[in-house]
């Protein structure tokens, strides 16, 4: 007697048979028939034709039969809306039933029937049920509001159900509270603007009370809701944390992770000096470790979240490395995640253990995993400097295994190690070269070619090696082709005599025989560079590369902060903010960590302190092969390149002799130089076609480079009247400040509005914050006759005596003439103090940003500025605010900038620009926070003019 009998019916007239049974008089037979119908439905058979017959069975006292019919109705009402109306009366009647179970069942089922006509009838019964005396009915009704909202949002608002739902948050029964919260959260998701879950300390208190008493699922909803609240100060944050901490011991992992989210978020507000902060950190580790002993699916989600947590607060799990060791029968998705976290936790203290493990993994069966393990060894080398040597020798051991994919991966990571520790491990190059033939993956080939090119001077047969690659040039992938081109040019610049033919060959392959625009462009750029100014070419191509930094694929700090607010959600699994993937992007509000505030400080106005403090770990990603061109061009094209003016003749003649001219200077000291060697000129067709645009493109390029550093002048505000004539016996002084090519001057305009001639001008400054002082006496050569005006530029220096002024940029000036002495004060814009060498090195920037405490960070909003990131950065650059890095995070452009004041104070800035939004966010970090306000004003003036 099992249900499988329902699946075996005679083939012919199955529906017909069921119809007959449904209309039978016998209760038992009816029920059996409905069961058969349900069984068919569960396996996806279409039994909608039986709708009227099944609905007829609804009027029954038999609870099971009733439930079965309800089940059927929910499934098919949509396709038979007219028929479904027939059921309405029964529903309405059931909502009045004395048995609360029936009332709840009716209201629950009705909500599941997604037919507009029915929902209208639902409103009255629902209103009653929301106020039902029985909490079981109330909690069911709460969910029903969410259902109804999904079908017809307008109706729910019009009927005032949302308010009733809000009232339920104060219900006496914790389950009702939990369901109300869940329903409101779901509704809020589709209504981002409405403040449905308007939390205040009272409602928070109610939620915290309900938290202790409701079911595990309810706890998840409540915790997720709590996480959206921003406590008003650190005391409130702490008290909420204290009440949430017991949830860490819950058996349900979702409860644990939601609790972790609340704690991670509110911790941001606690001062690190608090004892409680330390206690909390300690309490977080065990539950996270426990999650890893759960089923693999749970482990996976937990690991993705732990990945975020260790990036934000590495101290929590720093002693727990071992739990991330991989078991050989872990599913592959768990293995890969564990490996990621192992690298993040690797430090000098545990590196030996980690390396031993990684080496073990490199002999496993699964290819993907082995590859990642090999890569991980390289990352350890880059991350933990002291271990680099061991890592390299481990990699060499692995190369000796001759397992093809292991060798290839190892070569790729060794390339990265070379970039981190140049000139240290080149002894291994010989071993690498032995494996040249076995490399068949583009990435590995490209890495190997890079190594050969970079160290060409130490590899005796570098030209042979590269030549061997050149044979099949057109069969290589773009990555390899680009790399080969660069490598051969490097080789040529290092050993010009022996490799002319080779470079000629590769340039012609790249420019003439390839239809890949990137390759062709790069070929032409090199060609032109070599032909115009080989010395410059050398400086460009062989420029010292910046070291790559320790961490790869770290998450952007702002994004990380946002993701911390999404711990335990899909966003945390994908490491993307919900806006990046939630259907239609509807209902997505950006979340951010609360700012750290002390209880005695009043919270800043929301405009100035909306976002959490970025933690300052700014990632620097190992560039992939494709980026190298970018690297080359971005690198050091700064001042050292004495921008060679491209003569028109060279552009025109380019076709004839692209390389000829320059070689002399490159090899001037070599007697058998090839000054007279005629390089095979490229066939005229190609350059004729592209010559001109290239020429102009290149001169653009050089314009840009030569421009940097000499570009004259930061923004000069218009002159303002500083000293009106009536206050100075007829002398009117207006002026402004300028900064040009490193020197500051005060541009004055003196007007004589008196009736007598003025002579004997002199000027003096009071002591001021930055030591501004006249560098030369004020020279007015001729006497100033009435109604005459002179313009004088007074050079200033910053070596005068210093006294802190209030406001900081206040300057008190005394001007003397034959009549009297006059005093006035003026405010100078801070950007005249921004010096030309204010571009900080990337590494320095990272370190400094981290180093400056978060309290020193100030946030500002620059409004109504419609420039794009590019324009902003150019504009600022001319005022000596330098963009060090730019990246795009989910549509927003982030500019990282630095500037230095004349007295050596560095100011670091993060400028966030959202296309289409005229308001920019500016975060400033500086060891002397009092300048921030003025720097902000400088930004504002520069950008708006």
């Amino acid at each position: 007697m099992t249900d499988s009998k329902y699946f075996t019916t005679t083939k012919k007239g199955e529906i017909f048979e069921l119809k007959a049974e449904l209309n039978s008089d016998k209760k038992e037979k009816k029920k059996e028939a409905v069961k058969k119908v349900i069984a068919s439905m569960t396996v996806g058979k279409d039994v909608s034709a039986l709708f009227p017959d099944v609905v007829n069975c609804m009027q029954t006292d038999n609870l099971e039969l009733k439930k079965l019919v309800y089940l059927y109705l929910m499934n098919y009402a949509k396709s038979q809306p007219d028929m479904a109306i027939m059921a309405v009366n029964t529903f309405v009647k059931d909502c009045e039933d004395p048995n609360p179970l029936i009332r709840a069942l009716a209201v629950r089922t009705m909500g599941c029937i997604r037919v507009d006509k029915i929902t209208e009838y639902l409103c009255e019964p629902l209103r009653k049920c929301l106020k039902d005396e029985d909490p079981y009915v109330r909690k069911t009704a709460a969910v029903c509001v969410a259902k109804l909202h999904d079908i017809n949002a307008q109706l729910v608002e019009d009927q005032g159900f949302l308010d009733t739902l809000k009232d339920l948050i104060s219900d006496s029964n914790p389950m009702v509270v939990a369901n109300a919260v869940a329903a409101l959260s779901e509704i809020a998701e589709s209504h981002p603007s409405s403040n449905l879950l308007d939390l205040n300390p009272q409602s928070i208190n109610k939620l915290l009370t309900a938290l202790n008493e409701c079911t595990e699922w309810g706890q998840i909803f409540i915790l997720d809701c709590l996480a959206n609240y921003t406590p008003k100060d650190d005391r409130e944050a702490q008290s909420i944390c204290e009440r949430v901490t017991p949830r860490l011991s819950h058996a349900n992992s979702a409860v644990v992770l939601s609790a972790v989210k609340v704690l991670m978020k509110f911790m941001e507000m606690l001062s690190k000096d608090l004892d409680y902060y330390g206690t909390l950190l300690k309490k977080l580790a065990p539950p996270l470790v426990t999650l890893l002993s759960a089923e693999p699916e749970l482990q996976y989600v937990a690991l993705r979240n732990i990945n975020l947590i260790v990036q934000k607060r590495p101290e929590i799990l720093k002693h727990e490395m071992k739990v991330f060791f991989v078991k050989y029968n872990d599913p592959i998705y768990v293995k890969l995640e564990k490996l990621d976290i192992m690298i993040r936790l690797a430090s000098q203290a545990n590196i030996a253990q980690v390396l031993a493990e990684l080496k073990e993994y490199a002999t496993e069966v699964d290819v993907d995993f082995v590859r990642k393990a090999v890569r991980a060894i390289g990352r350890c080398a880059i991350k933990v400097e002291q271990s680099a040597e061991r890592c390299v020798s481990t990699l060499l051991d692995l190369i000796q295994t001759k397992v093809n994919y292991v060798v290839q991966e190892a070569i790729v990571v060794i390339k990265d190690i070379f970039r981190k520790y140049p000139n240290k491990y080149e002894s291994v190059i010989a071993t690498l070269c032995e494996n040249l033939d076995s490399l068949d993956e583009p990435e590995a080939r490209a890495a190997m070619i890079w190594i050969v090119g970079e160290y060409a001077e130490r590899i005796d047969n570098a030209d042979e090696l590269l030549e061997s690659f050149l044979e099949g040039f057109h069969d290589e992938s773009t990555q390899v082709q680009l790399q080969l081109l660069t490598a051969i040019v490097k080789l040529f610049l290092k050993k010009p005599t022996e490799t002319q033919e080779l470079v000629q060959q590769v340039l012609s392959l790249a420019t003439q025989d390839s239809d890949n625009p990137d390759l062709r462009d790069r070929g032409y750029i090199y060609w032109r560079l070599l032909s115009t100014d080989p010395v410059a070419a050398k400086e460009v191509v062989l420029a010292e590369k910046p070291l790559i930094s320790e961490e790869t694929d770290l998450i952007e700090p702002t994004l990380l902060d946002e993701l911390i607010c999404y711990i335990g959600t899909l966003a945390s699994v994908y490491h993307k903010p919900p806006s990046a993937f939630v259907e239609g992007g509807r209902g997505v509000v950006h979340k951010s960590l609360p700012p750290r505030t002390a209880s005695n400080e009043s919270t800043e106005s929301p405009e100035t302190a909306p976002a959490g403090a970025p933690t300052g770990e700014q990632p620097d990603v190992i560039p992939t092969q494709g980026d190298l061109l970018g690297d080359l061009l971005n690198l050091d094209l700064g001042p050292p390149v004495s921008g060679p003016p491209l003569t028109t003749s060279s552009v025109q003649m380019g076709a004839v002799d692209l390389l000829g001219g320059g070689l002399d200077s490159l090899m001037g000291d070599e007697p058998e130089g090839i000054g007279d060697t005629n390089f095979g000129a490229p066939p005229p067709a190609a350059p004729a076609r592209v010559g001109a645009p290239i020429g102009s493109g290149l001169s653009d390029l050089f314009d840009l480079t030569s421009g940097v550093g000499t570009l004259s002048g930061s923004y000069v505000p218009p002159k303002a009247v500083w000293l009106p004539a009536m206050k100075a016996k007829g002398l009117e002084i207006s002026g402004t400040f300028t900064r040009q090519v490193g020197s500051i001057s005060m541009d004055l305009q003196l007007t004589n509005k008196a009736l007598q001639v003025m002579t004997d001008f002199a000027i003096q400054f009071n002591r001021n914050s930055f030591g501004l002082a006249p560098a030369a006496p004020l020279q007015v050569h001729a006497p100033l006759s009435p109604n005459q005006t002179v313009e004088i530029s007074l050079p200033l220096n910053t070596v005068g005596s210093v006294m802190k002024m209030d406001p900081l940029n206040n300057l008190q000036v005394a001007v003397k003439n034959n009549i009297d002495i006059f005093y006035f004060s003026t405010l100078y814009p801070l950007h005249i103090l921004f010096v030309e060498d204010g571009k900080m090195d990337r590494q320095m920037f990272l370190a400094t940003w981290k180093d400056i405490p978060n309290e020193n960070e100030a946030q500002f909003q620059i409004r109504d500025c419609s420039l794009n990131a590019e324009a902003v950065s150019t504009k600022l650059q001319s005022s000596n605010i330098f963009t060090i890095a730019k990246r795009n995070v989910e549509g927003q452009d982030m500019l990282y900038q630095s500037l230095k004041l004349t007295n050596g104070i560095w100011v670091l800035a993060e400028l966030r620009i959202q296309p289409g939004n005229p308001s920019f966010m500016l975060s400033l970090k500086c060891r002397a926070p009092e300048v921030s306000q003025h720097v902000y004003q400088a930004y504002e003036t520069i950008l708006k003019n």
Partner: protein
Amino acid sequence: MIHSLFLINSSGDIFLEKHWKSVVSRSVCDYFFEAQERATEAENVPPVIPTPHHYLLSVYRHKIFFVAVIQTEVPPLFVIEFLHRVVDTFQDYFGVCSEPVIKDNVVVVYEVLEEMLDNGFPLATESNILKELIKPPTILRTVVNTITGSTNVGDQLPTGQLSVVPWRRTGVKYTNNEAYFDVIEEIDAIIDKSGSTITAEIQGVIDACVKLTGMPDLTLSFMNPRLLDDVSFHPCVRFKRWESERILSFIPPDGNFRLLSYHVSAQNLVAIPVYVKHSISFRGSNSLGRFEITVGPKQTMGKTIEGVTVLSQMPRGVLNMSLTPSQGTHTFDPVTKMLSWDVGKINPQKLPSLKGTMSLQAGASKPDENPTINLQFKIQQLAISGLKVNRLDMYGEKYKPFKGIKYMTKAGKFQVRT
């Protein structure tokens, strides 16, 4: 919240679907099948799969994929935990959770699923409450139902669902009042080639079977509660009392439940009860490799190790193995390359060993990977962490219950690298 659920068997048939909101076409599972195809083994199917309009979250249990479909941002752990609860409930209801059993009870399954979620929100997931709402099928009840025409569906309000102790139903009556607790510890460990421990941790649980009349209030105290610094409790445990006194105080659910689970990871506390001596060499003459392993007791606190099984996945290059065990039986599957040796009890006087040769693929080089040995064993009457229950007291009821505590240690993921 949770939109739909599909149950899929290992041959890729959807044999049950349930929708809590609008109907999602089963074609959404095609994305799942794609992922399944990419993953070589069922265990490796990723638990979260994005599709253009939905997300598929799945767990793989008892050779069935439970695939939940969600549409909005929902905590994935919540979904996965819920799926586990579904599996547990099926097991609780039908004894086993398998495709034929689910098909046999499809209507009950459907009714149960309907009670577990409402519009995707969990409604009743405690097995106590569910059983009050929908009685599990028994042969007797089926017979009675057919005769009397009564049904499996209970008709009163599931009282427990609203009380402060939702996990316990009211009006429980037993003639024999008994409470049994099993302290079960599993050792997860990785032992390296040389026999030293790389990681070792203990996952412990206390499972209870409590059949007590009325509303008993129990307290359980330990000799050494300091061991338990990383614990997860059943909701019935009063957390405050544990924080302050390190005593477990609770009103138990009726029947079987897991009172707490704990985790001991401090290395020095984890004793390793067995060792494996191995000598595996792939460099023999004439494509023959040598293979020898011996299993022996290490720190067993004087108890016997039983139920020992050795499992090892041999490298692909191994064609066959000809081995002789000193005790027990062994098999080698030349297709899957899985070696399994059922050892049984370890007699410290005469250590079990398995010796012999492997025939290797001719001409092939030494395999890249070394086989890992997976060990299973059991030790009765011992909690390897040393955890001991001090006493169990009952308040609130007058009768005297039978009480019992049992200890057991098992191997969890116990791996020896060679």
